[in-house]
C-alpha cells in the first residue's frame, strides 16, 4: 500500500511537472499555436454605436494584420504585430496615415503623410480600442481582441471580413512571412505542357536541382527561393507590403549567372520565365499544406 501510494505520488508529480513544461513550451512553438485578431469597426451614433464591419484574421503566431480605413479626406493603413510575453501580449501597430489638408494653388489636393508607431500591453482576450483618426475620439474606432488557440500544424493564414456598411472602404489582410512555399513548375512549348512538378522550398536554403521533362527532352535547373529586395518606400516598409512575396532564382546547373528571377505572392498565379532553349518555365507559388 505504501509503495503503491508513493508510485502514485511520483506519477502525479511527473504529470504535473510535464503539464507545466507543456504549458511553458507550447506558446513558444509557432506552428502549434494559432493566433486570431478579432476586430469590429464601430461608429458613434446618437442612440447606440453602430457596427460598420467585423472580421477576423488568423494564422501562425507570427501573423500580422494589415487594416485599411479610407474616407474622402483620410487614409489610415496600420500593420498590427504581437509579441507574446507569458499570459500577456505586446501589441504594436505601425501606422501610415494620409490626411487631405487642402488644395494647392492649381486646385490639386494636398495630402499630409505621417508614419508613427504605437505599442500597448494587454492580456490575451482583452479588448483594445484603436482610435485610428486621432485622440479627439471622433469618427469610427476599432475594437480588437487577440485570441490564441492550439491548432496542430495549420500554418496557412485566413481572413474573414463582413462589411455591414458597403459605402465605406475598409480592408483587412493577414500578413505572414512564409517559412515554406509550395512551388508548382511546368515547362511550356507551344501547346505542349510538361507534367506539373510540385516542390516545397524554404527561403534562403541551398539550391535544389530539378529535372523537368517536356516531350523527350530533359531540362535540368537549379532552383532556390529568396526573399525580395528590401522595400524602397517608407510605406512599403511600414506596412510590410511584400511580406508574402518570394522570389524563385533559376540557374542552369553548369553556370553561375541566373536565367532569371520570378517574384510573386503565394496566390496561385503562374509566373513565366523564357528559357534559352525556347521553352517557357511556369512557376506557381502557393501556401504549403499542413504537415
Amino acid at each position, binding site marked *: 500500500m505504501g509503495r503503491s501510494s508513493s508510485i502514485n505520488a511520483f506519477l502525479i508529480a511527473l504529470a504535473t511537472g510535464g503539464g507545466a513544461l507543456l504549458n511553458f513550451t507550447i506558446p513558444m512553438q509557432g506552428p502549434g499555436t494559432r493566433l486570431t485578431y478579432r476586430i469590429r469597426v464601430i461608429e458613434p451614433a446618437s442612440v447606440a454605436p453602430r457596427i460598420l464591419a467585423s472580421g477576423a484574421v488568423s494564422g501562425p503566431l507570427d501573423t500580422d494584420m494589415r487594416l485599411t480605413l479610407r474616407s474622402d479626406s483620410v487614409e489610415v493603413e496600420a500593420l498590427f504585430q504581437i509579441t507574446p510575453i507569458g499570459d500577456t501580449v505586446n501589441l504594436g501597430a505601425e501606422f501610415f496615415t494620409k490626411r487631405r*489638408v487642402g488644395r494647392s494653388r492649381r486646385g490639386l489636393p494636398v495630402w499630409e503623410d*505621417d508614419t508613427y508607431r*504605437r505599442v500597448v500591453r494587454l492580456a490575451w482576450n482583452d*479588448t*483594445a*480600442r484603436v482610435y*485610428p483618426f486621432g485622440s479627439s475620439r471622433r469618427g469610427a474606432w476599432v475594437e480588437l481582441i487577440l485570441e490564441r488557440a492550439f491548432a496542430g500544424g495549420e500554418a496557412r493564414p485566413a481572413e474573414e471580413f463582413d462589411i455591414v456598411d458597403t459605402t465605406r472602404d475598409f480592408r483587412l489582410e493577414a500578413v505572414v512571412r512564409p517559412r515554406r512555399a509550395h512551388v508548382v513548375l511546368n515547362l511550356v512549348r507551344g501547346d505542349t505542357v510538361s507534367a506539373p512538378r510540385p516542390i516545397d522550398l524554404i527561403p534562403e536554403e541551398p539550391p535544389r536541382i530539378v529535372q523537368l521533362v517536356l516531350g523527350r527532352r530533359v531540362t535540368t535547373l537549379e532552383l532556390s527561393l529568396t526573399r525580395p529586395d528590401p522595400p524602397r518606400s517608407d510605406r512599403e516598409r511600414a506596412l510590410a507590403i511584400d511580406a508574402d512575396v518570394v522570389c524563385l532564382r533559376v540557374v542552369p546547373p553548369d553556370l553561375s549567372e541566373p536565367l532569371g528571377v520570378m517574384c510573386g505572392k503565394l496566390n496561385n498565379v503562374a509566373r513565366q520565365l523564357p528559357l534559352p532553349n525556347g521553352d517557357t518555365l511556369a512557376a506557381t507559388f502557393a501556401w504549403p499544406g499542413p504537415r
Partner: protein
Amino acid sequence: MTEPIHDQWLVQIDAELDGELSLVERAALAKHLATCVHCAGARASQLEVRVALARSAGNPHAFVVPRPVIRPGTLVLWVAIALGIGLLAGWGAHQRWGGPGSGAPLEETRGTIVVH
C-alpha cells in the same frame, strides 16, 4: 429755420480765413459778425486753431497756416519701415498658423490604442 443759416455763416467764416471769399461776401459776413456774438466767437476760435497749427509747424508769425511738407527721404524711410513690419508679421503668422491643414497639434490627429 435759423440753424441752417447759422451753419452757412460758419462755412463762410472758414472760407474767409482761407481767403476764398469775394468782397461782397466778406462785407456780408462782417455785417453778420457785428450782430452775431456766436459767429464772432466761432471766428475767434478758428483763428486760434490756425495760430496753434502755425506754431506747431515752427512758424508762429505766418500769414497763412503752413502746409505740411513731406520730404522724399522720410517717405521712403516710412514705406521701408512699414514693409519690414508687414513682412515680419507675415512671417510670424505663417510660423504660427501658416501652411495648409488644421492647426491641431500633430499628436491629436494620430491614432491611439486604449486597452479596456
